[in-house]
């Protein structure tokens, strides 16, 4: 009974482990590459997508939004390594993301390190933190594991909120007000609105890295073991593999990827705020993964991008004239971004149980039926 909450997420056979059989089989390996190239040249386009973005694609506002979306796409893909592919429900993933955000920020702003050193230290530190805490938390399973990771993350949140003092009386983390990033030591290419495009490319690089790593790992022998762990941990043990070790590897790897995401996010937003330590962030990662389709290659990425897009754009939607002109009983709720987001999410879970990526398999019979006519 204890375990059932974390029973393997809606079974998805990892793409990597099943042979492709579509007509596009020959082309498919190149599709991600095409997508990457398209994403990389977006900033050269002045196309205006009214309603979707406030300005042309290459305007700093749009690029900033896209950069945030891409980071969260990567973050969700990393989280899926835990949740969708190994069946571990962690409620504390925000901690490692926050370690990246605050680690970079504190090291740059308070310790005055150059960015590359700060980033390297932060990622190393975050990975080690994940390894240590994972080593402890993985002594439990199921919902207990979820709660222990939540507890660790909560301690992280409390530490950030407490704003421990340095000798000089300056708080380390800035408490609830957060800590703006001191950009004076940063490469000029990462500072200023006109350079938002570089942040965008950075985010794209991060996303590519995560997708590549996750894809590679889940197609590897280790990934096969992780998929087995999702179904039956006891069996893995009897086959002669130590479940604990493999789970720890997945946990550490996911933690490290999240920390790297934190570093990038810190640069994009230009600071850290306690928002990133909250358990809501982990929950929203879960939401992203499920929205997209757990255990699939592109589902979590799409879920993450879509979620963040909605999260940001709905604030504009809520205050738009279209909404304001509605009768009060509609316009009031609709002007609450969280209301719309929550509703969209409920509907998504309800109508696309396998996530966005299941749309394809759901639509295929329909399309073939149409084609036959």
């Amino acid at each position, binding site marked *: 009974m204890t375990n059932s909450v974390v029973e393997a997420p809606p079974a998805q056979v990892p793409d990597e482990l099943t042979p492709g059989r579509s007509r596009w089989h020959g082309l498919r390996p190149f599709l991600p590459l095409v997508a990457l190239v398209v994403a990389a040249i977006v*900033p*050269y*386009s*002045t196309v205006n997508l009214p309603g979707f973005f*406030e*300005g*042309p694609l*290459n*305007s*700093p*506002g*749009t*690029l*900033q*939004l896209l950069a*945030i979306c891409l980071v969260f796409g990567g973050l969700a893909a990393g989280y899926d390594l835990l949740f969708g592919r190994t069946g571990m429900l962690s409620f504390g993933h925000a901690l490692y993301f926050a370690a990246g955000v605050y680690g970079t920020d504190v090291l740059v702003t308070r310790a005055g390190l150059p960015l590359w050193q700060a980033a390297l230290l932060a990622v190393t530190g975050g990975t080690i933190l994940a390894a240590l805490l994972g080593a402890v938390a993985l002594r439990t399973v199921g919902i207990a594991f979820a709660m222990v990771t939540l507890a660790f993350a909560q301690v992280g949140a*409390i530490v950030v*909120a*407490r*704003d421990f003092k340095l000798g000089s*009386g300056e*708080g380390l983390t*800035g*408490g*609830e*007000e*957060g*800590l*703006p*990033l*001191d*950009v*004076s030591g940063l490469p000029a290419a990462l*500072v*200023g*609105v*006109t*350079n*938002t*495009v570089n942040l965008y490319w950075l985010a794209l690089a991060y996303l590519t890295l995560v997708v590549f790593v996750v894809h590679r790992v889940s197609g590897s022998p280790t990934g096969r073991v992780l998929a087995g762990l999702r179904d039956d941990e006891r069996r893995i043990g009897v086959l002669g593999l130590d479940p604990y070790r493999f789970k720890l590897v997945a946990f550490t790897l996911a933690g490290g990827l999240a920390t790297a995401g934190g570093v990038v996010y810190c640069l994009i*937003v*230009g*600071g850290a*705020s*306690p*928002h990133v330590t909250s358990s809501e962030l982990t929950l929203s990662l879960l939401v992203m993964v499920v929205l997209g389709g757990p255990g699939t290659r592109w589902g979590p990425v799409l879920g993450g991008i879509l979620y963040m897009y909605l999260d*940001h754009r709905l*604030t*504009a939607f*809520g*205050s738009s004239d279209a909404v304001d002109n509605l009768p009060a009983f509609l316009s009031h709720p609709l*002007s*609450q*971004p*969280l209301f719309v987001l929550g509703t969209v999410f409920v509907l998504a879970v309800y109508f696309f149980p396998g996530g966005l990526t299941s749309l394809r398999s759901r639509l295929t019979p329909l399309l073939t039926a149409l084609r036959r006519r």
Partner: protein
Amino acid sequence: GSPQDTASGGGDGAAPVKVGLVYSQSGPLASYGKQYIEGFKAGLDYATKGTGKVGDRKIELTEADDAGDPAKAVSAAKDLIGKGSKIIAGSTASGVALQVAPIAAQNKVLFISGPAATDAVTGANKYTFRSGRQSYQDVVTAKSFIGDATGKKVVVFAQDGAFGDANEAAVKKVIGGAGATVSSVRAPASATDFTPFASQIKAAKPDLLFVAWAGTTAPAMWQTLDQQGVLASTTVVTGLDIRASWPTFGAAGSKISFLSHYFDGASDTEAAKAAKAKIPGGTLDLFHPDGFAAAQMVVRAVSEGGDDVDKMVKALEGWQFDSIKGPMTIRAEDHALLQPMYQAKLSGSGTTFTAAAQKSLTGDETAPPVTQMKG
């Protein structure tokens, strides 16, 4: 197009001036944000004499919601700057103000922070100004309640975190510096039950208790302080929050000495009358003055500086003007906004409470110490 294009501000004499307002339309601080924008519009009307124009250039407002989230605020600010806004104003939450300020400096645009009370905005950088009060000014007002501080025992009761830290530090400096012994009782902002803290305060037997508490748990906190007899045994000072919160003080309300940034009736200036006439409902509240002053500053900046941000900064530094609260001064050294503050008493019961000013302090009396400009 090139990836590093940004729209230019337009040097054309009659082109509208783009002003971006990034504040909380939703989220926990939505009601503060609402007052701010009402105040801003009234202020703009007042400062442009109803035309909405400076010279023959129209002030074109673009509003964006940050929902209290710095990341959203930064995105919105970048978007606005990218589209040619040379002026960003707003920031309901301190965390937001602190993260938007560097963006302004990096891109050399004017930033006028709103209700965010953190002291750190003052002197943050050359391009950052504030249109509201700061924590330090609250504390100086609190000090005025004990007269001669020498030998007095003062306790600060504040929540954990930067807001509490700032208040505690300010009290130590202001009241402690005047000869009082200051100690503090801190509680997590998420605390549910306040009895342990009330007991600690009571055991300390202070002459003055300064409470710095924000958030929805405040009513429970006051009730506990009242029930445990803290309010009856000492002078308790705290900041007066927005009108809607007054009834939540309940019976405790009349036992507290309030320092106030603003409440309806605290001043009777020209600007206050104009604002009252303009805002929906006709009753001024805590953050209307912040929006109002921000609009006045925007108009000043545009009329003196045109499209040149450095000229705008010059025009604002040292500027004295009359706003809702009375005479205000933008201190040139660190952009602190010197302004009157008030002592107030609350009376009434049920859902109808009224505040009455006991005393008002001038901008000089409540001036924070000058800080070093950081960037």
